[in-house]
């Protein structure tokens, strides 16, 4: 037992911290604030280039594919430091799609796609949901039919975030209409420049743009179906699993907490320092406790991955807990800011640049996205504690 990072892990953390201190400039942070955290501005792209040059673009990939082969706890440390520094987030292509290709793809597919993902030449959006297939992903209807050497794709995807900038789409399609519904889905790489694709913007409460994407007789080369036909549902779940290391990260919450703490230390209200108001002190201490609990759940999840265990229950625990803490921290933080808590990010007087509002508005997405918290709780109860399905 050791409730402390090893000297090697600490050295890695310090190395990451040093790099971020140098390269996450106030100008970059300001750009991200205005871009709604999508990280698509010129400074964010320049930062990603620096990460790439440093060899930190794909820290979790095995070395044979050009990665650093960092273990889950080291990845957890990296993500925590990135979030805490306010750096632009990593790309789903690298953290989620590529690992699924490594596991499921043929040798040819790995040779074809992984180097392009690594170089940034190929960037994926992820297309799972549909108007009538959200939490129940296996209800999806978008279909692909083989016609000679090409698949012909028809249907509609929802919440296809990044589809308007991505070069490719990682699409779950039904290829086996007669198979049981979980067994009839395949994963397909659809280049976004194919004729027949229409991208329609959807703007969300948090200002993040997402998309509805329509496929009308879109022709895709046969070899763009990844892995085995009919196994796509499981590959999609696998891709979600890879996002789990990031799920338990409380780096972002720590960043907000530190900013809130600094605000409380320097602010007076009604002639009294905020730091002297008992409920404010209590609220901050309580947040500190809750964030540390979240960190422990995230670490447990990452540590189990490194042990070769499948942290089904633990991953769900971290997801539920941390996403709900996002909402709690945002609400508590805005309450501490008082009336100024409602000032919009573009109001120059907004404390913390209105960032708590951004957190507040992204928190619902955190809770229902990536597998709703209701489903996660069922996973914990059924798969973790043996409660009956029926």
């Amino acid at each position, binding site marked *: 037992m050791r*409730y402390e990072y090893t000297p090697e892990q600490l050295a890695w953390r310090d190395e990451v911290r040093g790099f971020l201190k140098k390269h996450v400039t106030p100008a970059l942070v300001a750009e991200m604030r205005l871009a709604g955290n999508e990280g698509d501005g010129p400074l964010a792209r320049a930062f990603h280039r620096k990460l790439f040059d440093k060899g930190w673009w794909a820290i979790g990939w095995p070395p044979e594919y050009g990665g650093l082969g960092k273990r889950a706890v080291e990845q957890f440390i990296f993500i925590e430091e990135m979030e805490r520094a306010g750096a632009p987030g990593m790309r789903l292509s690298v953290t989620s799609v590529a690992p699924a290709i490594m596991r499921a793809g043929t040798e040819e597919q790995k040779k074809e796609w992984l180097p392009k993902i690594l170089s940034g030449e190929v960037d994926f959006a992820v297309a799972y949901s549909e108007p009538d297939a959200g939490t129940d992903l296996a209800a999806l209807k978008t279909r692909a039919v083989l016609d000679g050497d090409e698949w012909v794709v028809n249907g509609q995807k929802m919440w296809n975030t990044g589809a308007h900038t991505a070069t490719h789409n990682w699409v779950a399609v039904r290829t086996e209409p007669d198979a049981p519904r979980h067994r009839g889905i395949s994963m397909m790489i659809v280049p976004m420049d194919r004729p027949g694709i229409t991208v329609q913007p959807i703007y969300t409460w948090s200002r993040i743009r997402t998309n509805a994407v329509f496929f009308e007789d879109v022709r895709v080369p046969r070899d763009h179906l990844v892995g085995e036909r009919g196994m796509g549902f499981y590959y999609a779940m696998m891709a979600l699993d890879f996002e789990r290391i990031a799920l338990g990260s409380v780096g972002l919450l720590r960043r907000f907490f530190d900013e809130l703490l600094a605000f409380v230390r320097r602010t007076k209200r009604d002639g009294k320092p905020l730091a002297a108001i008992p409920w404010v002190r209590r609220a901050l*201490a309580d947040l500190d406790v809750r964030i540390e609990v979240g960190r*422990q759940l995230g*670490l447990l999840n990452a540590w189990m991955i490194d042990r070769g265990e499948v942290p089904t229950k633990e991953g769900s625990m971290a997801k539920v807990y941390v996403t709900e803490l996002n909402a709690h921290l945002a609400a508590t933080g805005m309450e501490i800011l008082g009336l100024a808590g409602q000032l919009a990010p573009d109001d120059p007087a907004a404390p913390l640049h209105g960032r708590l509002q951004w957190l507040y508005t992204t928190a619902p997405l955190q809770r229902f996205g990536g597998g709703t918290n209701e489903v996660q709780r069922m996973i914990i109860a059924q798969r973790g*504690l043996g409660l009956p399905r029926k």
Partner: protein
Amino acid sequence: MHLALTDEQQAIQQEARRFLAAEITRERRLAWDATPEGHDAAFWDAVARLGWFGFGLPERYGGQGASLVELGLLVEECGRAAAPFGVFAAIAGGLALARLGTAAQRRAVLPAVARGEAVVALAVAEARAAAEPRAFATTVRRRGTALVLDGEKQFVLHGAAADHYLVAARDGAGVSLVLVPARTKGVAVRPQRTFGQDRQAAIRFRRVALPATALAGAPRTAWPRLEAVRRELVALLCADMVGGADAVLDMTARYVCEREQFGVRIGTFQAVQAMVADMAIALEGARHVTRQALWRLAHRRPAAREVAIAKAWTGRAYRLMTLTAHQLHGGAGYVVEHDLHRYSARAVEGELLWGSTEEWLGELAGTLGLRAPA
């Protein structure tokens, strides 16, 4: 970062679990409820033979020198079994004397403690003071080279059965610790009946004359040392609560898998599954913040923040878990024959003991660099 237990640590857990499951039968527990000590001599002797009372004490005093991590695992099992709280109290009291006593006091008392033949009880709280020594009414004065102790301590764990009291008393502008044999003239014991039936006591000291050698450590400067030990005991208490919370989750998950209503097992209901899942999340957090606190203390890392987090989270989580467990057990868990109420009462006591959730949150706020209110 390494969260697994060693084989040796697992063996500590397994042996303790087996022993307590075999010893604490329903019949025995009901019989204990009717005794003033809350258990019998045969049980105490069996625990003593296993060496638990000396497990965390230094080897030179007959102990086994286990670290707080290992001791925590043992205490966790006591909590899981809702073992008589006197066992925890005796372990805690022995540890307190090992940390705070003089060499002569340790030599004189600890070997008997390690054998389970003597119990040391830490006596700090009073009717109107718990954590602010300036508010203590209990005082120690000098008469020549001798000392005179006056006052009353309350909520002394296992106080009625203790052989020695380690008493924190106001001494001029500071606080001194004195070790008082229970049979000294002027010491009177009044049992306090608590919710958790764990045999606490008020100890009255009326002009108790003590030799200068009764002082534990340098006079008037005991408070910081006592605070440091309190942190260790709090972390151990958290381990007791983690064990108890684990047992509560376990019995609840089993119950909802068996109980049928409307022709189905109630564990199939999504509302029930969500409640059980939330219990599991709270517990997993408690387990790791507690082990983190114990590990840091055992390895001499700064741990004030981690202990505060462990106590604030674990006490609240355990208590709320027992309430959810009552809701899910319905009438089946409400009857006195069911053990659930033992955990529920103990959770309340655990949350109150040695600083409540709110008090530890206040302590934590102080470490955040927030200027305290004037």
